[in-house]
């Protein structure tokens, strides 16, 4: 006869409620682990998906994800000339926050190197890659933009032609993919008035120079578009991505590029590390510590529950001792209930979590090894927290059965 199950069956309703309570607690612990995984995964997802072998960024910056990086557009051509490079692409990346239907809309704008890169590598869930050089975008579903929807950014309107799922920036914003040219326009989106003012300012500055005084017609240049003026640097991009020919050593390519004085070069793994150690690190530690705290709280609460469950039975335990039950029978009674509580709690937490976590704004990833680890922790907690109850049960004297 199994005393543990008999007792549970007798107090089924209460036991079920207790299990539910424990499962909620464990679900939160589980969720914390999942959020932690989600943040790590999201941070590195873009780097992994893009799959570039090497990243060339502004010298001594940790760009383009961890901080702002600016390199000239023509760096692409320089990079292509390095032996062993199979392709070099422009990469433009920045985050914007606009208002849409009265709500803030944050988009991580990513420029694709049109026409070499139309976004074919993206895991599209609907629609198609970019089909023209302008006014099309691929939007992540988390942005809440439907296929074929029009989105006005600055002066221009873009049509959503494709959709991706969970393509988000390290800070959790959905990514919108544009051509590099469009991405640049979105970034430097200036009104006509701003352009006119800038040209007037240029002219005013020009007047200060002796050259302009001697040759006034030079000032006519000031009102021409910036792109037509050699003195003004062309718009810049964030980074250049390189793919190395198969069989060629990445290290060698990186060595050549890093000899250039104006840029730094990172491998894919180095980029990932930059993100994990930089922007994500604090969040990661924060959640890690919070998780430890939750585990401790869960242990304390379980210990209290198991203790009260033991107190409820203390008369029966005294009686069992009175009729000669050995300690191992009483030990089994308490331990088994602790294990049943832990196991059922964990099971419900898992099932519940699978329904609840997808509703969270950021990804919660229930990783197999994390779950296994948590299961181990729950097992230890269950056994450990029954010690308090056991201690009480061992101390009760058979005499108490008579009172």
């Amino acid at each position, binding site marked *: *006869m199994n*005393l543990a199950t008999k007792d549970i069956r007798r107090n089924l309703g209460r036991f079920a409620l207790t299990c539910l309570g424990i499962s909620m607690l464990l679900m939160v612990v589980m969720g914390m682990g999942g959020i932690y995984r989600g943040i790590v995964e999201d941070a590195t997802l873009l780097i992994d998906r893009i799959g570039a072998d090497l990243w060339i960024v502004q010298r001594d910056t940790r760009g383009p994800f961890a901080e702002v990086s600016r390199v000239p557009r023509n760096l692409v051509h320089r990079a292509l000339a390095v032996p062993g490079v199979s392709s070099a692409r422009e990469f433009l990346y920045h985050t914007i926050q606009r208002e849409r239907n009265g709500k803030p809309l944050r988009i991580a704008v990513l420029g694709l190197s049109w026409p070499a890169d139309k976004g074919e590598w993206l895991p599209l869930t609907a629609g198609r890659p970019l089909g023209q050089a302008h006014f099309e975008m691929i939007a992540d579903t988390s942005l809440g933009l439907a296929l074929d929807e029009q989105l006005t950014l600055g002066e221009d309107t873009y049509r959503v032609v494709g959709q991706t799922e969970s393509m988000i920036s390290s800070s959790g914003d959905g990514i919108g993919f544009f051509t590099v040219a469009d991405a640049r326009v979105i970034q430097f989106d200036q009104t006509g008035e701003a352009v006119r003012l800038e040209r007037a300012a240029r002219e005013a500055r020009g007047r200060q120079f002796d050259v302009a005084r001697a040759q006034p017609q030079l000032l006519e240049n000031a009102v021409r578009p910036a792109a037509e003026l050699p003195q003004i640097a062309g718009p810049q991009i964030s980074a250049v991505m390189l793919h190395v020919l198969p069989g060629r050593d990445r290290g060698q390519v990186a060595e050549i590029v890093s000899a250039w004085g104006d840029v730094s070069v990172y491998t894919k793994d180095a980029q990932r590390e930059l993100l994990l150690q930089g922007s994500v690190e604090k969040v990661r530690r924060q959640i890690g510590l919070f998780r430890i705290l939750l585990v401790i709280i869960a242990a304390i609460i379980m210990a209290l529950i198991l203790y009260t469950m033991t107190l409820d039975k203390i008369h029966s335990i005294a009686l069992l001792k009175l*009729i*000669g039950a050995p300690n191992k029978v009483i030990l089994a009674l308490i331990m088994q209930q602790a294990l049943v509580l832990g196991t059922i709690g964990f099971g419900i937490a898992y099932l519940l979590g699978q329904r609840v976590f997808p509703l969270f704004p950021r990804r919660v990833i229930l990783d197999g090894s994390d779950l296994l680890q948590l299961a181990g922790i729950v097992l230890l907690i269950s056994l450990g927290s029954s010690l308090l109850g056991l201690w009480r049960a061992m101390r009760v004297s*058979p*005499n108490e059965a008579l009172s």
Partner: protein
Amino acid sequence: MTVRDSEMPAIRAERLVKIYGEGNTEVVAMQDASMHVNRGEVVALLGPSGSGKSTFLTAVGLINPPTSGQIFIGSTLVLDGERPHADLRSMRRQHIGFIFQKSNLIPFLSAVENVQIAMELNGQTSIAARRRALELMDYLGVAERADNLPSMLSGGQQQRVAVARALANKPSVILADEPTAALDSRRSRQVMELLATVAHEQGAGVIVVTHDHRALDVFDALYEMEDGRMRRKKSVIHSVIS
């Protein structure tokens, strides 16, 4: 039952002393209480409230060791003062059956399981234990309530289940502390007679604490306690008449 059998000791208590508390609050609950019960013998323990009857019974029941004195189960020394000479719990399990004033059943087990558990703890298989439990309950007239929880039984029914549990392991000693307090006089006489029958049939030594003087004729011997001292009364007949 032969004469020789009946002279085999079931339980023997020698000069038991029990002192509760210390200093100002010291209570001497039992002083030099001795008793000798043979197998097959049924003994009544009488005495006013607070005279130490329960103290004596829990001492010989190995629940509440005496401050000094010796307790023998059969011919083995089990307790010498507070010092155990054997595993008390396994002695209780194998040799002693308890019946108390309140029925003391485990609330989350059904009636039959309450009887069954005593035998399973003693190493019987659950099938054999259940069979004997049902037989005992049938014998005690509570078989039809076998699957009910104790809370659904009347006081008398609970008491009979407790008696069944006490008899389950065929103990050599049965200790009963006012077992009939919750019963009407007809039922209480039935329980007393049942204990006597079991004692004679199974060769168990039975000690019953009772206030009920109407059923004293079923006992083989009477003891009386007063202020912690034990006295054997001369004869059963004499007490019944007086």
